[in-house]
Every structure is written in structure tokens, then in C-alpha cells.
């Protein structure tokens, strides 16, 4: 039996898809058979972040409607043979699938995978309900901003009515330099306001933009965010990994150093 994890946030643009891609990659790196499901029907993105957009033949709606078998729709990752993606449909909308069908779809994958990762769409409507229906646990992604935290609070409230075994927070795009000078809420502030346990902190890191440009997730690479994602994966597996808040520098000198490294 696999563990089904939904990655959600309420607000759009806080990093759900990037988080899904990197946690999926990280779990596969750690040797777990993992499948990522893009449940954002109509706005397909996880394939692009994974760099697998050219390999799509069938999608989630095709599987649900019986146009193809599950095996035909699953795309194997180019780096990790134990990592798969079930892409979403681009030309359909959220009403093409209902929560019952999602639960059935997940059941079909239960025996072949250790982890099933659901990338939830933004919002609290049908798409959210579809994604959450079959989940065992939830990862709520937020950033240290008023609007993102307000939506995360709403999502946490809505998740209470589902039968989840656990719910954890991921605070994304943290800039320790801004926290230090008092211009950004700290991770403690966010946890205090949302009253939910934390599973990881991702620093605001240029490497994420570069990785998304290239379609190569950076979990496990020698970057502050790459390490932070791998730490989250280890915690998901039950390891006790101490929390570290990496110091990413945004100054001129460090940028020069970055340029030199790349040259």
C-alpha cells in the first residue's frame, strides 16, 4: 500500500507545483517508487517543471474516461526509473473528473507505488475537492505573505473535514536576510499564526528559477533549496532531520561568485 500525499495551498503561485516536482524527485532519489499526479485539469504545469512535456500521449482524464490504460498514460522520468508522472489534461476543465473517480484512480496505483503525490490546483472548488478526496496526508505550502497565509488558514480549516492522518506546513520563499531586518515574517510567526506543524522551510533561491527554466528539479543538488527539499523528503520517510534555515546571500559579491562558478 502506498501513502497518498496532497500538496495544496489555496492561493496560486506560492510554489505547489515546484514543491510537488521536487518532493517527487527527492523521494525517488531516496529509492521510493513514486508517482506524481497533476490534478490541475485545464492548467497543466507539472510536466513542464519536470521537463517531460514532450512525452505526453494520454492524460488523467483519458484514464478516468477509459480511453487508455493506466500504464499508457504514466510517463517515466528521464532521470529516475522509479519516478512516474500522470499528466493532467490541458483541453478539459475541473468538472471532467469527480472525487469518486479520483479515489478509484488512486486505488489503481496503490499496489505499484510507495508514494502517490497529488499536485492540487489553486482554489477551493471542484479541483481542490478532487485532489484531496483520496489523500492520506496533506502538505500545505505557503509563503511568508499576508495573502498566502490567509488562504493557507482557510485551506487548513477545509482539510479538517477530510480523513487525513497528518497535515504539515511548508514555508516557501523565505529570505532570512529580510527576516533578520524585520521586513518578513519569520517561520515561527507563520507557525504561530497557522497553528500547524512544520515539515520544512525552502529559502528563496535563484536556483529554483534556473531549474524550472531547464525542466530539471533540483532536489538533492548542492543548492540551499535542493537540500531543503531533500530534507523534507527524509522527514516524510520518518527520519529525524534537524531544521536548518540556510543563509542564501543576495548581495553583489555572492552574485559575482555565482557567475564565476557558472563560467
Amino acid at each position, binding site marked *: 500500500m502506498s501513502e497518498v500525499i496532497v500538496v495544496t495551498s489555496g492561493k496560486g503561485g506560492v510554489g505547489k507545483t515546484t514543491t510537488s516536482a521536487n518532493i517527487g524527485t527527492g523521494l525517488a532519489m531516496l529509492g521510493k517508487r513514486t508517482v506524481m499526479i497533476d490534478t490541475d485539469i485545464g492548467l497543466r504545469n507539472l510536466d513542464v517543471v519536470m521537463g517531460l512535456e514532450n512525452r505526453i500521449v494520454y492524460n488523467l482524464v483519458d484514464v478516468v474516461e477509459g480511453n487508455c490504460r493506466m500504464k499508457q498514460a504514466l510517463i517515466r522520468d528521464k532521470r529516475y526509473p522509479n519516478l512516474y508522472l500522470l499528466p493532467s489534461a490541458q483541453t478539459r476543465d475541473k468538472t471532467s473528473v469527480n472525487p469518486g473517480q479520483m479515489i478509484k484512480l488512486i486505488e489503481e496505483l496503490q499496489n505499484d507505488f510507495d508514494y502517490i503525490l497529488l499536485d492540487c490546483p489553486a482554489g477551493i472548488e471542484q479541483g481542490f475537492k478532487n485532489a484531496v478526496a483520496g489523500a492520506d496526508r496533506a502538505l500545505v505550502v505557503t509563503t511568508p505573505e*499576508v495573502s498566502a497565509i*490567509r488562504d493557507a488558514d482557510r485551506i487548513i480549516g477545509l482539510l479538517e473535514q477530510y480523513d487525513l492522518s497528518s497535515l504539515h506546513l511548508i514555508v516557501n520563499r523565505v529570505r532570512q536576510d529580510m*527576516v533578520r*531586518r*524585520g*521586513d*518578513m*515574517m519569520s517561520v515561527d510567526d507563520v507557525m504561530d*499564526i497557522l497553528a500547524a506543524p512544520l515539515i520544512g522551510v525552502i529559502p528563496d533561491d535563484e536556483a529554483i528559477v534556473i531549474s524550472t527554466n531547464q525542466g530539471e528539479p533540483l532536489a538533492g543538488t548542492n543548492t540551499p533549496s535542493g537540500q531543503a527539499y531533500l530534507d523534507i523528503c527524509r522527514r516524510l520517510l520518518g527520519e529525524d532531520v534537524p531544521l536548518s534555515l540556510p543563509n542564501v546571500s543576495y548581495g553583489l559579491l555572492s552574485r559575482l561568485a555565482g557567475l564565476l562558478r557558472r563560467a
Partner: protein
Amino acid sequence: MDRRILISRRRSGEIARRRLKILLTTDKTGVPPETLEMLKRDLCSVVSRYMDIEPSRIEICVRPVPHEPDDAAALPSLCTVIPIKGTIVKGTF
């Protein structure tokens, strides 16, 4: 440059935290802004029977107020600020 802008800029994280606490309490207590507006109008008419107040500057909101010193049980409370123009109590002087 306005000094107030500089000061508030330095503490914007704290401002965000305070705004959020108020926002979430309002979200959770389910007191919609329209209700607060109505309450404000009623309060205004009641209070102005006794005092000379500034109706345009009345502030009203629901936010957590710690009633115990340890802050653990901050209850959502109705907070109002009603600026008084004069301290003349009508009808008594």
C-alpha cells in the same frame, strides 16, 4: 522623506503579522465588514447622545485580545476607537 514611512518600512514584518491576526480572527468569527459598518452606525448614534464624537474617525474591528496574562487564550474581541471632539456630556451641563 517622511519619517513615518521609514519607520514603518523597517518593521513591515511586524505589520504583516498584526494585520494577519486581525484578518484571520475576522475570517473565523464570521463577522462580515457590512455587519461592522451597521454596528458602527448604531454605536455612533448611541454615543453621540452623550458625547460630541467624530463619526468619520471611528474604528471598529474584531481581533484577538489576551484576557489572561500568558496570552494563550486570546479571545476574539470587539475593539472600537471613538475619538471625542469635546468632553461635554450633553444634557448634564
